[in-house]
């Protein structure tokens, strides 16, 4: 494993080496391009000079014949040389461009010709005319006419063509060159792009297949990446791994020395060759790969000298280590040449790895110190702080690797660690070494550097403390060690503050303070720790204020938080105490009290004093101290444990806080008081309600609860008074109301404890009645709310207790007395609040309860009691509309449950149905929505009761069983209500209309369940199927969507039943499987439904306009899916396993054919899904069958053949779609575009596998090649490109197979040779590609 890791690490090192300095590579390419362009410029200039000389010669001859000689002017070309300004020639003919092409020669075909050409067209454009010539006073010759440049197909380039012959970088550089050249040109040139945008050019561009051009560019780019970079790296990597394997192999005639020599020789060749090639810019990238690989191989060979047994030449471990270090040093030295932190870092990593790989001793560990020191120096000098961050990890990591086994051994032996002191000293040395960068090299600070230093310091101190803790041998020195290191950090922080290094100062002061805090518990115990932490925190806080540093104050806050944690976790457990004036006082109570005082002092004196210097955020944060102080005070009271009176004591403390808060107008103190009140109430609930001991004939519970409730009423009154004076805000008013509710709740609970159990419910009912009337009289919303809540509690009590009271009292059960009384009370309250439905006022749509509220809304506000309008509650609040109606509902609920308790079991559901009828009629009479809703609810419960109980009632009554009687009665009620509600009240709300329709569905469902009870299992699915047909016909006849929906649901049920029952039927009737009979019948029903719905649609597709509801538009597709799935399932279970795939394939063909013939997209989709299932089935069942006989071969052959049939059908479909597209412009569905090649590919793949399994292995390649040829021919005949490409690909695959399959499973030696040979070949290919890349690209 270690060997493999080493190989991988070396390979990774090589990879980093080879890919380093990407920027340098790009620069190198840029330089190369510039040189190339310069060469082109030079050749172009020479050409241009020659061209103008020839033109001049021709012009002078013409002038000599016509006009006197004109003076020649001199201009300057782009290179600064002077050229004669020549007369512009006449409009050049096409032959002139042909001449240009010939003259340009190979340059025009070079990758940069696309950019160079426009410059060559300079003289031909209208603007090309030299400005000198234009400004000439007496032009010798007439200016030439603008040539029709764009008409020249030879010269005019188009953008896509340009992209073919040049990579993006080249293009950008070339465009830049063109721009520069255009800027330098003494006259405007034809390089200006607008001149190229002519009609012909556009036409040419549009004729070019952009996809093909882009694809070619992609392949070109891929080849460049492969040949220029990737092959080189892969080659070197493979070569190195090959030689690594070679070193580990034992040869008969080659000893270790020979192998080591070969390793060094090859590495030297690689490094030497790389260094030699590196001088040539073209091979820069290639050479770096060689150098990296060479060093990696050299390092590995050195490693093998001692650590690889097969080639161990060096027996001394020290010598091996020194050699490895030397190799690493060589790599480091070489790497520094490149000034690359990555490369140097890798070299150092290998250096550290050397120590890790060797059996490190304490002495060898000092090498890490040296390595670290050198790394620190190099990084500081070269400013490589990123690299420096990794240094402590490496150094401390090496030390940990050395330390771990020794510590484990020492622990196992129970002895102290050997060399523990020296190890600690070494760790301290590392720590000191990595502190150095904080005070050197700061002049080079740049962005991110301080953060890196912060990271470095964190790693340093973390590793330092972690390692020392791990090897800790002397715990008794911990206190001194922490104090010392903390003091050192505090001192370093002071030093950093003097150097204005704020970040480091804060880190160090954090570390120092943290270590000091950590030191205290190592020596001191008890409350002293809290006292000392408090002192340190106070010191930090005061220092923060004096030095004006918020960070110190933040640290102080953290220390205070720590102190709080300590007090909460540790000091609360401290039970020690002392005696003061005869009373025992808990030590921790003093500590908590002192801390509370300190916290109050900090907030109300210290922070308030420096309020102007601190931010609002910090001030707000300081308020936390106040709350913490309150918590500490609460805890101090708790620590004295006054068990019975604790709640009262807390309540008194809270009242004091609230009173002081009201006096000082301090919301924080009031808030603390409120929270303490909550605490007191919680304590009361948790403890005091269980106090049954009497004091003065009254229980302790009563005294304490009443006292707290009284205090709450007092606080409520105080706050309310302040609120009326507007001395407190709305939040306090809210709290006041909450306190009022809590007080009343306490009173209610007291009632619960004092009143006999059977009377609690009615008592609470009476209390609610009083509160509601009182709330109405006093106009208090809170009192009314309490009334409603207590009513609810009374209801709960009735449900929980009173329904179980069956004893008689005066001839009636107690349950009837109490529940009836409560129900009457509820109906009374509902009537009193006007919730009994619409009053019989003609033309008035307002419900009675709403009218009642409207009357109350009109009452004048009670201002005469000194209550400001702001505090007047309003009865018109929305929420108050709910309770009266809820009372009505609860009244009916109580009666319904009473029926359940009183009637025989079989009659409950019918009784509820009758009650529902009554409620519906009552709702119609009172026009009350609430009564109708109650009717619905009771109907639902009756339905549930019916389903749960009455279906099992098989007792006969009047020759029929009770199930039939009761279920039929219920179904009749449902159908009656469906009819009655539709005819009687057409203005039903939307939800009631839904409920009415649900009644119809429920009635049908009841009948369906009856069918289940009456019919045998196998017959149920056909029955459901036929019922679905009947329902659909009825639904279509009466245009009833609900009936049709029931039809679909029943069809789904039939299908489900078919899957769970009929599909498993093994019985036969006269040789015919019942599975086929029943399943076929069900599927026939489903298909009938499908055809009926399909005939209702207008076009046979999705549209069902005017016939079916839009929700049903998908139903034909769903039904057809079910039918096809059912057929597929039958085919899965009926024939022999081998023939399942074949039958599925046939089904796919049928579906596809049907879909194409009917132009039904969904059927085609189903066919493709079945085809996919055929493929999967063939792959995983037919191909993996344990016994593959001729039957299986035939079945698989049929499956594959059916897939090819699918492919043929899809081809046919494509032809039809193409014709349609040409006629109508409607494009075929997108998925068909992919299905055609996918089907072909799958069929071909299955055919290949079938051939692989059945054909003789020796002739397999030939078989496959024949099949590829057939595919190619088929593609030609069918004019299908994918088939042709697949055939060609298959042929290529056959070629590859010759090489790949033979190489698999070779012996070790052969594998080594393969690796080395392949590496050399790849290197050679890469070398050749690098050398002749331009030539290769020309022939693409």
């Amino acid at each position, binding site marked *: 494993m270690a060997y493999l890791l080493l190989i991988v690490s070396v390979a990774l090192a090589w990879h980093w080496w080879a890919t380093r300095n990407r920027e340098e590579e790009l620069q190198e390419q840029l330089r190369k391009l510039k040189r190339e362009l310069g060469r082109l410029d030079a050749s172009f200039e020479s050409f241009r000079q020659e061209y103008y000389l020839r033109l001049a010669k021709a012009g002078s001859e013409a002038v000599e014949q016509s006009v006197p000689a004109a003076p020649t002017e001199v201009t300057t070309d782009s290179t600064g040389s002077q050229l004669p300004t020549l007369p512009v020639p006449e409009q050049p003919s096409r032959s002139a461009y042909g001449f240009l092409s010939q003259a340009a020669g190979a340059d025009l075909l070079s990758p940069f010709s696309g950019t160079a050409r426009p410059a060559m067209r300079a003289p031909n454009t209208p603007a090309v005319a030299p400005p000198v010539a234009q400004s000439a006073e007496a032009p010798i010759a007439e200016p030439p006419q603008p040539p029709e440049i764009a008409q020249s197909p030879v010269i005019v380039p188009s953008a896509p063509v340009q992209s073919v012959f040049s990579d993006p970088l080249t293009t950008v550089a070339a465009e830049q060159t063109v721009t520069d050249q255009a800027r330098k040109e003494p006259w405007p040139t034809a390089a200006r792009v607008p001149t190229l945008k002519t009609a012909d050019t556009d036409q040419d561009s549009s004729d070019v297949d952009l996809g093909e051009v882009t694809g070619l560019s992609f392949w070109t780019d891929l080849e460049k990446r492969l040949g220029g970079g990737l092959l080189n790296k892969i080659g070197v990597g493979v070569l190195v791994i090959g030689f690594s394997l070679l070193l580990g192999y034992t040869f008969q005639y080659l000893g270790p020395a020979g192998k080591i020599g070969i390793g060094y020789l090859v590495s030297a060749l690689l490094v030497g060759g790389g260094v030699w090639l590196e001088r040539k810019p073209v091979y820069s990238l290639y050479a770096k790969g060689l150098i990296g690989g060479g060093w990696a191989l050299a390092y590995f060979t050195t490693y093998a000298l001692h650590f690889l047994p097969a080639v161990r030449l060096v027996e001394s471990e020290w010598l091996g280590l020194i050699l490895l270090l030397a190799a690493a040093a060589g790599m480091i030295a070489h790497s520094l040449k490149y000034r690359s932190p990555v490369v140097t870092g890798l070299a150092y990593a290998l250096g550290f790895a050397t120590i890790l790989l060797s059996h490190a001793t304490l002495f060898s560990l000092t090498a890490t110190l040296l390595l670290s020191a050198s790394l620190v120096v190099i990084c500081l000098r070269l400013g490589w702080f990123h690299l420096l961050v990794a240094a402590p990890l490496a150094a401390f990591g090496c030390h940990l690797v050395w330390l771990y086994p020794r510590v484990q051994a020492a622990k196992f032996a129970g002895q102290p660690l050997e060399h523990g002191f020296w190890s600690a000293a070494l760790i301290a040395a590392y720590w000191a070494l990595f502190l150095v960068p904080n005070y050197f090299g700061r002049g080079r600070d740049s962005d991110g550097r301080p953060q890196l230093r912060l990271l470095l310091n964190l790693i340093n101190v973390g590793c330092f403390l972690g390692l020392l803790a791990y090897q800790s041998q002397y715990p008794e020195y911990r206190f001194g060690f922490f104090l010392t290191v903390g003091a050192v950090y505090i001192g370093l922080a002071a030093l950093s503050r003097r150097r204005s290094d704020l970040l480091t100062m804060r880190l160090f002061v954090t570390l120092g303070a943290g270590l000091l805090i950590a030191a205290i518990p190592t020596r001191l115990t008890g409350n002293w720790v809290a006292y000392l932490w408090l002192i340190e925190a106070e010191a930090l806080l005061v220092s923060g204020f004096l030095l004006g540093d918020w960070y110190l104050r933040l640290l102080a806050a953290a220390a205070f938080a720590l102190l709080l944690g300590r007090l909460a976790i540790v000091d609360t457990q401290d039970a020690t105490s002392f005696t003061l004036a005869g009373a025992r006082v808990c030590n921790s109570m003093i500590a908590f009290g002192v801390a509370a005082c300190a916290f109050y002092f900090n907030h109300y004196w210290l922070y308030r004093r420096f309020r102007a210097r601190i931010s609002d955020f910090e001030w707000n944060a300081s308020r936390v101290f106040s709350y913490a102080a309150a918590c500490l005070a609460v805890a101090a009271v708790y620590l004295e444990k006054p068990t019975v009176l604790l709640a009262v004591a807390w309540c008194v403390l809270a009242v004091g806080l609230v009173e002081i808060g009201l006096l000082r107008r301090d919301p924080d103190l009031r808030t603390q008081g409120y929270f303490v009140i909550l605490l007191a109430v919680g304590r009361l609930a948790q403890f005091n309600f269980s106090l049954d001991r009497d004091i003065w004939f009254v229980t302790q519970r009563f005294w304490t609860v009443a006292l707290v409730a009284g205090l709450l009423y007092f606080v409520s009154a105080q706050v309310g008074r302040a609120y009326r004076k507007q001395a407190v805000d709305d939040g306090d008013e809210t709290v006041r109301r909450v306190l009022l509710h809590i007080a009343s709740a306490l009173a209610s609970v007291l009632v619960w404890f004092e009143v006999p159990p059977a009377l609690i419910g009615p008592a609470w009912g009476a209390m609610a009645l009083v509160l509601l009337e009182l709330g109405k009289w006093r106009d208090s919303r809170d009192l009314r709310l309490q009334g409603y809540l207590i009513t609810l509690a009374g209801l709960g009590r009735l449900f929980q207790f009173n329904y179980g009271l069956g004893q008689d009292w005066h001839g009636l059960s107690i349950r009837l007395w109490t529940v009836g009384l409560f129900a009457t009370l509820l109906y009374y309250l509902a009537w009193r609040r006007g919730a009994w439905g619409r009053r019989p006022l003609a033309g008035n749509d307002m419900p009675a309860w709403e009218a009642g509220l409207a009357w109350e809304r009109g009452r004048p506000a009670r201002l005469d009691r000194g209550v400001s309008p702001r505090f007047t509650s309003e009865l018109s609040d929305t929420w108050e509309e709910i309770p009266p109606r809820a009372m009505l509902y609860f009244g009916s609920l109580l009666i319904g449950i009473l029926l359940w308790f009183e009637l025989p079991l079989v009659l409950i559901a019918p009784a509820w149905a009758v009650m529902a009828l009554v409620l519906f009629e009552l709702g119609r009479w009172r026009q009350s929505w609430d009564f109708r809703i109650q009717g619905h609810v009771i109907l639902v419960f009756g339905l549930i009761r019916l389903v749960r109980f009455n279906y099992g009632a098989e007792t006969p009554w009047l020759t029929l069983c009770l199930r039939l009687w009761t279920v039929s009665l219920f179904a009749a009620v449902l159908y009656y209500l469906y009819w009655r509600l539709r005819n009687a009240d057409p203005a039903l709300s939307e939800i009631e209309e839904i409920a009415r329709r649900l009644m119809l569905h429920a009635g049908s469902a009841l009948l369906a369940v009856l069918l289940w009870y009456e019919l*045998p299992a196998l017959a149920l699915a056909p029955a459901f199927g036929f019922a679905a047909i009947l329902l659909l016909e009825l639904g279509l006849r009466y245009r009833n969507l609900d009936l049709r929906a029931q039809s679909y649901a029943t069809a789904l049920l039939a299908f489900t039943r078919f*899957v769970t029952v009929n599909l*498993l039927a093994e019985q036969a009737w006269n040789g015919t499987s019942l599975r086929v009979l029943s399943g076929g019948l069900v599927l026939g029903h489903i298909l009938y439904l499908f055809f009926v719905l399909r005939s209702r649609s207008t076009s046979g597709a999705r549209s069902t306009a005017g016939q079916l509801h839009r929700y049903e538009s998908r139903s034909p597709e769903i039904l057809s899916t079910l039918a096809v799935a059912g057929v597929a399932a039958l085919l899965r279970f009926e024939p022999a396993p081998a023939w399942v795939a074949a039958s599925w394939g046939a089904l796919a063909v049928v579906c596809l054919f049907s879909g194409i013939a009917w132009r039904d997209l969904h059927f085609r989709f189903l066919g493709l899904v079945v085809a996919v299932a055929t493929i999967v089935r063939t792959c995983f069942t037919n191909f993996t069958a344990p*016994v593959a006989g001729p039957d299986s071969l035939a079945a698989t052959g049929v499956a594959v053949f059916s897939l090819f049939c699918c492919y043929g059908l899809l081809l046919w479909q494509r032809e039809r779609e193409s014709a349609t597209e040409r006629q109508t412009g409607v494009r075929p569905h997108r998925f068909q575009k992919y299905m055609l090649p996918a089907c072909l590919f799958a069929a071909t793949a299955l055919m290949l596998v079938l051939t692989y399994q059945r054909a003789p292995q020796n002739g397999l390649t030939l078989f496959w090649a024949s099949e590829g040829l057939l595919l190619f021919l088929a593609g030609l005949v069918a004019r299908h490109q994918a088939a042709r490409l697949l055939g060609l690909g298959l042929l290529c695959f056959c070629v590859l197979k010759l090489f790949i399959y033979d190489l698999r499973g070779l012996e070790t030696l052969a594998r080594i040779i393969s690796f080395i040979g392949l590496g050399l070949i790849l290197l050679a290919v890469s070398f050749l590609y690098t050398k002749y890349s331009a030539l290769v690209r020309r022939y693409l």
Partner: protein
Amino acid sequence: MKRTIPFILLTLFTIGIGAILLRHSEDSEVSMRAVGEVAGEVMQDADKIGQRLVKISGAEEREIGRRVARMVTSYERIGPERQRFYVREVGKLVARHARRKDIGYEFEVLESDEVNAFALPGGHIFITSGLLGIMTSEAELAGVLGHEITHVDLRHCVERLQYSIAARKVGGPLAELAVAFGHDMYERAYSELQETAADEGGTVMAMHAGYDPWETVNLMERMGDKFGELDRSKPSSPGREAGQVVVGAVNDYFQTHPPFRQRIVNIEKTARRSQSGERSPRWYIGRVNFQTLTARSIEELPGEWWSGEP
């Protein structure tokens, strides 16, 4: 009118087939077995890919089987030598028709009242004396041995270990445990399919060896009577039926073997399918051979041959 004739035809078909179903549809199973089988096939297909990736060699499988077999024989008592010899002889006869040739099959009898037979990787087949005790013929023994040989032949035994072995190599014992548990849960979805395949393969193997497949059917019927089956009678309500279907689905998932009646149907179908190509099938039963513990390979009795179906 357009739909009238099809509707009438469909109604007539429904009435006719409904009448047939009313007469023949007693004792119909209601379960999700059909869905479970299809889902199990899909999961088994998916698992085949993974099994192919972590496939171990035959030598490794033999080594594992050897170690496990040693453990089994060290914990369990071995049966009498004569019985072991007899089982070995019958096993050799059946194993000749196994597909895998890199496995050397070994047969052993365990002295146990438990009615069981199992196979280990590498071809180690164990059968308990309890199971031998309820057998009546050599053909039954051949069917059982063929079943277990098929498990090895189809790599069912080693497939249960392959993931664990790979996980142990990568992640250690904890990973092995986790993967073993995970794969065991996964495999339960199609373990019944494996058993069905083993039944079919074992039947075919025994038939190729000349043994009567209907004897295996008889054995299964006896075992079904002995061990009973899950009650799948008609429930009292549709809700209970739905619950029974769900519970049955869960039960089927955790059940390693199909119900005996299902196995009987499968074996019968396989036997009929396999003998359909035979012109004059003759099968050996070997009741006397079994009683005297004399293998057919040693002494073939003419009276034990039988032709045709029962």
